[in-house]
């Protein structure tokens, strides 16, 4: 009779937040894979009820220190929909610039320090630094320039404070943004080098048959607005999100699992989905680089998300440069309206994937809030991918299996703190 084998990865390293992974096998069969998220729920949706609309972007920014802008963007767009506020094109552009800063800092950290060590056989970014100084220094500097953009536009790099419903509390001066141009010219060239570097890594042959979802826009590489599109050809407005998707509670996770309706199937959001769905809307240099490195789409190999991140860093630097060079401070930098009752929602693209917010407001206060973070949406797909990935690994010893699984989980750049925080892996063999 086949024995049960349990493998536990008690602390998944190089991911944002805390969680665990349980793998149970019987013989060569995978019986159970559970991405455990055991952090207590953070209860932001309840915390927002009764708070003034103006407080929401600063409260939601606290959900994540790496992608606070995403939470601010989804919240302000949703609240503006509820209040029927229309922002000016200049404010919209400045918001894209702020989002570029966040994509740059988040992706640069993940590509160079969290994920690259997996492909080059190092246990950490620190270990990688010894032998790959040029690349690690480049990654640190790329991240720094992303942070600079957040500081100038958001007031500070972590949990920015300048985003308001209707725009910004203060628009940066022209000279403040113009001063960033030389560093961003360097950044564009450096991002191309990084993308070429990671494209040369040895990738596991792991093409998945999964649904990819991202916000798309006909005229631009979507960040703040557009339809939610699927590789199935379907698409939805943000207002249709709650009918097309559902959130389910599972016993092993304090984060809800998002699934597609009506069949409750898993799907993947994030940079790989975005590049697949909007490759033709990447910036010219990003498109040229994708062609030059022969990044073929469709691509559903989660390990290759590191290449998609590289392309998005190029895109973000190129778009930032265009805005930095032509920037005129918006006047006014914030639009306002009356505080009537209403409800509104928005989906924007956080570095890790689609982020949906919905708010109902009355008399300037939030009466209900719904937040669906990207990692909640990717959890079930991660478990499904592990189930498919495991049979080829299972003959290895527990440490090797756990390490390979951690590597796959890291490729999604999960932000467990966002979805509720660290991963422990348990493998039960039989």
């Amino acid at each position, binding site marked *: 009779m086949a024995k049960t084998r349990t493998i536990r990865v008690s602390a998944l390293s190089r991911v944002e937040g805390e969680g665990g992974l349980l793998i149970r096998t019987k013989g060569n069969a995978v019986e159970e894979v559970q991405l455990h998220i055991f952090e207590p729920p953070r209860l932001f949706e309840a915390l927002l009820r009764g708070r003034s609309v103006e407080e929401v972007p600063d409260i939601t920014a606290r959900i994540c*220190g*790496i992608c606070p802008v995403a939470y601010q963007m989804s919240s302000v767009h949703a609240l503006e929909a509820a209040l029927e506020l229309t922002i000016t094109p200049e404010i919209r552009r400045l918001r894209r610039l702020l989002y570029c800063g966040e994509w740059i800092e988040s992706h640069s950290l993940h590509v160079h320090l969290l994920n690259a060590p997996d492909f080059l056989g190092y246990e950490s970014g*620190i270990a990688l*630094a010894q032998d790959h*100084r040029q690349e690690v*220094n480049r990654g640190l500097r790329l991240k*720094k320039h992303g942070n600079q953009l957040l500081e100038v536009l958001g007031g*500070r*790099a972590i949990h920015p404070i300048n985003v308001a419903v209707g725009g910004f509390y203060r628009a940066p001066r022209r000279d403040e943004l113009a001063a960033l141009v030389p560093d961003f010219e360097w950044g564009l060239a450096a991002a191309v080098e990084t993308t070429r570097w990671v494209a040369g890594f040895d990738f596991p042959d792991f093409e998945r048959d999964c649904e990819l979802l991202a916000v798309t826009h006909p005229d631009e590489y979507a960040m703040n607005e557009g339809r939610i599109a699927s590789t199935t050809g379907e698409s939805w407005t943000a207002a249709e999100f709650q009918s097309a998707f559902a959130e389910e509670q599972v016993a092993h996770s304090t984060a809800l699992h998002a699934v597609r309706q009506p069949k409750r199937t898993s799907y993947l959001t994030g940079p790989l989905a975005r590049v697949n769905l909007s490759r033709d809307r990447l910036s010219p240099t990003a498109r040229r680089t994708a062609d030059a490195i022969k990044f073929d789409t469709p691509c559903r190999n989660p390990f290759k998300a590191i290449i998609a991140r590289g392309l998005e860093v190029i895109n973000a630097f190129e778009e930032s440069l265009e805005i930095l060079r032509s920037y005129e401070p918006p006047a006014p930098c914030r639009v306002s309206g009356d505080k009537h009752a209403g409800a509104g929602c928005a989906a924007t693209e956080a570095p890790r994937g689609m982020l949906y917010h919905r708010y109902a407001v009355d008399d300037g206060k939030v009466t209900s809030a719904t937040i669906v973070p990207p990692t909640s949406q990717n959890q079930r797909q991660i478990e499904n991918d592990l189930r498919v990935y495991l049979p080829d690994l299972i003959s290895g010893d527990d440490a090797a299996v756990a390490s390979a699984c951690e590597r796959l989980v890291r490729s999604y750049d999960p932000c467990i703190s966002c979805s509720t925080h660290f991963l422990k892996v348990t493998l039960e063999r039989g």
Partner: protein
Amino acid sequence: MDGAALFVGVGSPHGDDRAGWLVADALSNRARAGCFTPPTDARAGCRGLVIHKASTPADLFDWLDDAATLIVCDAVRGAGPIGSLHRWIWPDARIGRLRASGSHDLCLSEVLEMAGRLDRLPAHVVVWGIEASPVAPVSEVSPEVGQVLPVVAEKIWSELSPAIDI
């Protein structure tokens, strides 16, 4: 000496986590009062002394390259009673055992270790830790920490003085 003496106070506007910034302010005031070149922005130039305030230890990467010696001051938790002072010479395993305040970025020991691997760390690195009480947002420093700030600033100034030829 070839490079500047670099002091970095790591902190935030929150309670005892202000400690690193307040020590940086005290040293900047001391540098201004003592002589020399007026400071500009966050940088106080004084015969090769550079003072910065950092929000996160990873900010050190921006300033390390010109430094001949580095002193870092940060609030710490888990190394003694509130208001106690600690002085460690890098490398010291105790720095790595301090409680990290979050998982959003590299902690101080990771930054110092990585800087070392990248050959960007000065030969002499000192870390001053001030034991902090639990932090409340945008609060003032606790009386225990407030009391030791002038002491630690004086000790660091004395330590820096030979290095910057005051």
